[in-house]
């Protein structure tokens, strides 16, 4: 009886399905990924058990950092351009088309309108270096530019996209309540009574001692 020779298999393996899968995933992630925009100020929001999600678009963000500064941001470029023109007209400041273009590309900003022109003339790197020393948007009762920005942005969004604005207050956990309360009070003066506080997710307690 002849010996049964073990069949020698080649050690090479077919990697095609793995490659297929890998590239499928790469394509998926490339298409879905959203890079974090380069914001003027980074805040660490407090956590809550609320599981409401912000909508995809039309979000107006008022960022409050721990140095009592307020930053304004909007997610749509045309609205920002319209708001810039309207607020500029109110304070007698005009902007060049390049400045308007630059402004529409920024996710948020925190300078008084009088300094906005020179801030916009700087390039991205210079602006980044300047950001920690920015004064923020004035929001005191004598010179309340913040409310002008909010109102003009809401107006522009309603005119351009016929959609309501979703107002989000993004506060740093270490920010003081007074600043946030002032912002809320200013908005209430203008009959804006619904706010959304941006928070990071925390698990709901399973047992609350009922």
């Amino acid at each position: 009886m002849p010996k049964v020779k073990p069949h020698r298999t080649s050690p090479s393996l077919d990697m095609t399905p793995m490659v297929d899968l890998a590239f499928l995933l790469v394509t998926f992630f490339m298409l879905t990924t959203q890079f974090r925009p380069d914001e003027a100020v980074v805040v660490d929001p407090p956590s809550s058990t609320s599981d409401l999600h912000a909508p995809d678009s039309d979000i107006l963000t008022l960022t409050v950092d721990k140095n009592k500064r307020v930053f304004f941001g909007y997610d749509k470029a045309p609205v920002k351009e319209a708001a810039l023109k309207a607020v500029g007209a109110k304070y007698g400041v005009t902007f060049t088309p390049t400045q308007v273009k630059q402004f529409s590309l920024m996710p948020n900003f925190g300078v008084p309108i009088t300094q906005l022109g020179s801030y916009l003339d700087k390039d991205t790197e210079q602006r980044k270096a300047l950001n920690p020393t920015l004064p923020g948007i004035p929001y005191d009762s004598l010179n309340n530019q913040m409310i002008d920005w909010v109102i003009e942005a809401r107006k522009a969004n309603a005119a351009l996209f016929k959609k309501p604005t979703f107002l989000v207050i993004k506060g740093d956990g270490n920010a003081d309540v007074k600043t946030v309360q002032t912002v809320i009070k200013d908005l209430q003066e203008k009959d804006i009574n619904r706010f959304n506080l941006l928070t990071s997710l925390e698990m709901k307690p399973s047992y609350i001692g009922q």
Partner: protein
Amino acid sequence: MAEIQQQSKDSGKGGKKRAKKMSTKIDMTPMVDLAFLLLTFFMLTTTFAKPNVMQLTMPVKDKNLKDDEQTKIKASQAVTIILAPDNKVFYFFGLNEPTDPSVPKPEIKVTDFSANGIRKVLLERQHQQPEPIILIEPYVYEGKEAKYKNMVDILDEMNITNQKKYALIDIPKKDIDLIKTQKLL
């Protein structure tokens, strides 16, 4: 390497020179390396989670309403929570009416944001008094201030303990005086 080169067996023999047979298999290892590198990169940088928000609806201010026309809170319903600096919570039941001698002075108690702190107090109060009205007052006085985090925490507690009526208000002077007299700050 995933592919192992087979040694050609006809080396050394002076036979005919044959055209080298090219293998139809390609070594895909570098491509796989690159694909997984990209995959890892995109997986780590992507942000799926949309930010969470907590909704806060403030009452509409009626500017025509006079002070004496405003709805009064019953003393039995009222719970005042003061968000103090250093993550402390002060609370008292009933109303603080220093001008009215018939109302006894409320006693402020101190607690914190832990599960056995203010949450327990609120739940116990809910058992005694089914519909409490909670007044949240962040302490802002003489440079000492509560943190925004505390405000979110207490609003969160309202959601967790399922409170129906609560309001975020400015701390009145009389409550600051009450804290002062009880030497809490």
